[in-house]
């Protein structure tokens, strides 16, 4: 099964999701072709076990632009005829992969977290209904399939191998959406990434006025307070406290999650924690899939009892 992986990189660094895509492609049998799109594609470290060929696609700018990636991916598919194209389910890929699938009328799925094969048929697994159910899907069309794979699911392909290196030039039309510059996220008042014990609260706390209660509890327990995305979106807490894909990826010894349902993007940011304890009143909450210990309970009642113990 011919696999095309589109390398993702940011400011000169290959992002880990690329190595996961290579591992997933290798598991599909390969051969695996990895495309490096950028102003200095040769500087990107893509020599990994399982890679058969690296194709450099030099373009004007070093940074991601959706029009560039759309045109290059379409050209790569036409030239290399892969059976499956793997990209990360990432902010960049969201900006081009669905457009190419639409343009070429390809099979397509996003946020895929498992893959298997039955003969020549690819069967992908993704979630529906807020991650509460899973579904196996396949792709009845004749053409190749673009799959956006969920990051942090597959292992990282190890360094090694001696892939062939080639170059492909693509003539591009002018970008209609142009990268101007990057802006750093605001500086943090506290580094949640270095805490041993995070007490993390989510939408389940209900209202802004309740935050003080958990600040108090965190202090008593010797924990650092962290939050899930909805509390930052609501303007209740600064983004420096946010755990998840668009916030911080954390790995404390203990992660105590109160009232966090466990959106995929949140789980990606905390699932490597040493011990995860989750309290949620919804027994079906996805957070219980990632937790080591769970309790279906009212978080305020448990918080009150925890206060008494510290």
């Amino acid at each position, binding site marked *: 099964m011919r696999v095309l992986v589109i390398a993702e990189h940011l400011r000169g660094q290959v992002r880990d999701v690329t190595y996961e895509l290579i591992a997933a492609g290798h598991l599909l049998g390969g051969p695996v072709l990895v495309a490096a799109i950028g102003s200095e594609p040769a500087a990107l470290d893509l020599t990994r076990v399982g890679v058969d060929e690296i194709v450099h696609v030099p373009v004007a700018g070093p940074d991601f632009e959706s029009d560039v990636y759309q045109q290059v991916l379409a050209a790569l598919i036409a030239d290399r005829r892969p059976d499956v194209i793997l990209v990360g389910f990432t902010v960049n890929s969201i900006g081009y*992969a669905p457009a190419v699938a639409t343009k070429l009328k390809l099979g397509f799925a996003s946020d895929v977290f498992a893959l298997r094969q039955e003969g020549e048929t690819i069967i992908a697994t993704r979630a529906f209904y807020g991650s509460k159910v*899973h579904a196996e899907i396949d792709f009845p069309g004749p053409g190749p399939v673009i799959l956006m794979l969920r990051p942090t699911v597959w292992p990282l392909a190890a360094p090694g191998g001696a892939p062939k290196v080639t170059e492909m030039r693509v003539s591009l039309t002018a970008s209609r959406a142009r990268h101007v510059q*990057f802006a750093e996220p605001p500086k943090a008042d506290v580094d949640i990434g270095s805490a041993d014990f995070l007490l993390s609260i989510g939408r389940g706390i209900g209202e802004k006025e309740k935050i003080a209660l958990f600040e108090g509890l965190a202090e008593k327990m010797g924990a650092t307070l962290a939050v899930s995305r909805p509390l930052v979106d609501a303007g209740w807490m600064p983004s420096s406290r946010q755990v998840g894909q668009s916030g911080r990826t954390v790995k404390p010894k203990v992660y105590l999650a109160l009232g966090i349902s466990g959106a995929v993007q949140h789980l990606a940011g905390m699932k490597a924690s040493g011990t995860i304890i989750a309290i949620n009143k919804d027994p079906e909450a996805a957070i219980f899939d*990632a937790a080591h210990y769970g309790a279906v309970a009212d978080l305020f009642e448990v918080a009150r009892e925890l206060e008494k113990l510290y």
Partner: protein
Amino acid sequence: MKLVVCVKLVKILGDEVEFKPDGMDVDPDYLEAALNEWDACALEEALLIRERLGAAEVVAVTAGASGSEEALRRCLAMGADRAIRVESTAEDPLSTARELVAAVTPESPDLVLCGVQSSDSVQGSTGTALSELLGLPCVAVVKKLEWAGSGPATAHRELEGGLIDIVEVDTPAVLTIQTGINQPRYATLRAIKVAEQQEIVVIRGPSDGPPAYRIRRMFAPPKGHGAQMLEGGPDEIAKQIAGIIRERLK
């Protein structure tokens, strides 16, 4: 000046789930529905642009069965000027985008705003697919938008880790809007009542083209992956949690 906002009525599954006899979908009796959170932010952004520029028309569009008009009525109650539903049974994002084109193209919008993703299916793909079909540039995952009403807009894309990528995009364009860009306004009870009476234009989509994927079977995920559930009242649960934490932090 015209702004089109594409929205979805998302399905919300409660504590229990049953599947249809064929195992291909959830039994609809177990589902509730609401306007997708990301789409509410997209609509709010359009309303803010209208307020800032003084004159603009905001058109809310959805693709779905008649029940999905609930999402459009919520948009009208929040302040959208008009609403259009494309009669559709599309499920996947690429098919949905094809249906939406039928409503969006005749409007010749200056901007098309979509939510980044829907809370139920988390595809993150409809807006980008739509941009291809409309022949417009696309900026995905926009956390901040600056636009004078004509010429290029400045969009702040929110990357992983919170890094911002500032992009200059020619208009018309399709932008997919991230939560946190604004706080969607609440609709007043009065506005909700008025919206119930407002006209929703219904059109038919093209319904051509292959689906992006086919569902083979749907199932409840394996529960807990070995999470040990703590039993008892709040006091007993708290005691067990404190014990685990003290042990692990030793």
